[in-house]
């Protein structure tokens, strides 16, 4: 038994070594850079916590947090409502069920960057033409050029891809609800909306939790779609936190400063994930 343990430790060593080298080590380096004025090249000095203090006064940083959160919250709500509806439809007694499920899942397998380019064209050329046709002034110009509307474009594109994924999760949730629950509910008069709210929803609550947590986490890390849709513009109004760290850290000599930003970002993600799991787990019902 002792020998088994020793050999099993050997089994884990390659992964532990790789993980430490390419995950933990850069994490530690990031923490170290975050208290320096490193530009990404040349020499640097220890500056204490001044990077962290600066962050809270930096309008570009604050704006990126506001945008990222606004986007993530709205997108999470939109995606969950629509994918729940779609899942209910796709799970009901319809024709060509397999075909529809396959089609509605399609957006999820496509790369976010390319999808962003395609929608960029639609928002820039097709939607404005349509807007002119119906005589709507706001829609007659590209929403991607409008600082107060561009973020909605990002929501639409990201939701288009995520709904596909979340719907599949909800469908697998709906399939765990046994038919006799509905039959028993029908006797007690639970039909329609009441049936969904009092019976279906509590029973698929674990899947709701998964979707909420996954959505929030993914959306807070949004990058690809923005890269091709708006590139953070106009006037940095759609610059997500990931994008800011990438742009300013890699190309604008803010290596140390953006490392501090990424530490804050990391703490925020951890806190939100923990909070969500705690709150949402309370609501689940065991069958």
């Amino acid at each position: 038994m002792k020998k088994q343990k020793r050999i099993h430790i050997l089994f884990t060593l390659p992964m532990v070594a790789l993980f430490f080298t390419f995950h933990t080590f850069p994490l530690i380096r990031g923490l170290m850079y975050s208290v320096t004025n490193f530009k990404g090249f040349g020499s640097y000095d220890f500056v204490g916590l001044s990077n962290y203090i600066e962050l809270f006064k930096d309008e570009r940083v604050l704006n990126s947090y506001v945008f990222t959160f606004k986007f993530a919250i709205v997108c999470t709500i939109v995606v969950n409502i629509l994918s729940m509806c779609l899942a209910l439809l796709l799970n009901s007694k319809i024709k060509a069920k397999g075909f529809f499920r396959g089609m509605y899942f399609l957006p999820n397998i496509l790369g976010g960057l390319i999808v962003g380019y395609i929608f960029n064209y639609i928002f820039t050329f097709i939607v404005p033409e349509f807007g002119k046709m119906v005589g709507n002034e706001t829609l007659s110009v590209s929403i991607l050029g409008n600082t107060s509307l561009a973020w909605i474009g990002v929501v639409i594109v990201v939701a288009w891809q995520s709904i596909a994924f979340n719907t599949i999760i909800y469908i697998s949730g709906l399939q765990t609800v046994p038919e006799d629950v509905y039959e028993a509910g029908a006797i007690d008069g639970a039909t329609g909306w009441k049936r969904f709210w009092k019976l279906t929803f509590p029973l698929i609550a674990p899947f709701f939790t998964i979707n909420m947590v996954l959505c929030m986490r993914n959306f807070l890390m949004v990058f690809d779609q923005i890269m091709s849709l708006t590139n953070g513009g106009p006037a940095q109004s759609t610059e997500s936190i990931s994008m800011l760290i990438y742009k300013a850290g890699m190309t604008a000599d803010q290596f140390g400063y953006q490392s501090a930003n990424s530490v804050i970002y990391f703490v925020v993600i951890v806190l939100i994930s923990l909070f969500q799991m705690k709150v949402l787990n309370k609501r689940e019902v065991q069958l």
Partner: protein
Amino acid sequence: MRTKKEKKNIWMTLLLAVGLVTILFPLYMTIVIAFKNPSDMTTNIAGLLSLPKEWSFHNFIEAIETTNFFHTLWNSFVITAGAVIGVIFLNSIAAYAIGRNMAKSKYFKGIYLYFICGMFVPFSMLMLPLVKEVSIMGLDNRFGLILLYIVFNMPINTLLYTGYLKNIPIALEEAAYVDGANHWTVFWKVIFPMMKPMHATVAIMTALSTWNDVMMPLVILSGGDESSTTLPLAQLLFQSTFGTNYNVAFASYLLALLPILIFYLFAQKAIINGVTNGAVK
């Protein structure tokens, strides 16, 4: 009663069919624009939406030449295949050792938590130091990317593999030991084949995320090896070359989407199952 039920089904089916427009419209636009001649592009709504006057393959030829399509396709293929093989092998063997020992050993419980905690770390947090480290090590190329994908998939796969391992009775291994098998053979001949359904899930999740990933190649290859460029990244790098020639750009997008669309056409069930298992388990 029966007729009423059937009627309802048809309405729902119709609703879903109408809804498909939202899925298919962007794809329709991509195909139409990719096949049109630049002179065929008008600005009024009917012209924008219409089918091409003549289906031209010229855009595709130009896109293939400008983006060096076959080269980037090959890169994406090598990186994805390498990542999938590496992940299945290295992640599963580590997760096997962890899963079988973590109940009774602090070391294994410790590395289990160590890997799992990695899930909370956003890539952007590691990005800046990682780029420096990888370029110093000379790994800013395809091989480096494969290694990184193996590392960054470990947290989720630890969860998936150790979870799946609970369903495999330990008696099988004990029987193999009695027959004189060593630890390596037990893993390779008994456990590894038994984890096949989980390998499928892991392979599909890894393949999709690796194939479509932009951020990792973007930052890792930024300083070094341009010849390692992947298929999606090439679309970003060639934006300025495409300029306002949307026809060539869309031909290039369509070419970049084609491999995964073909893959989806043939392995649709497996992909949907894989993605679902990965998220729900």
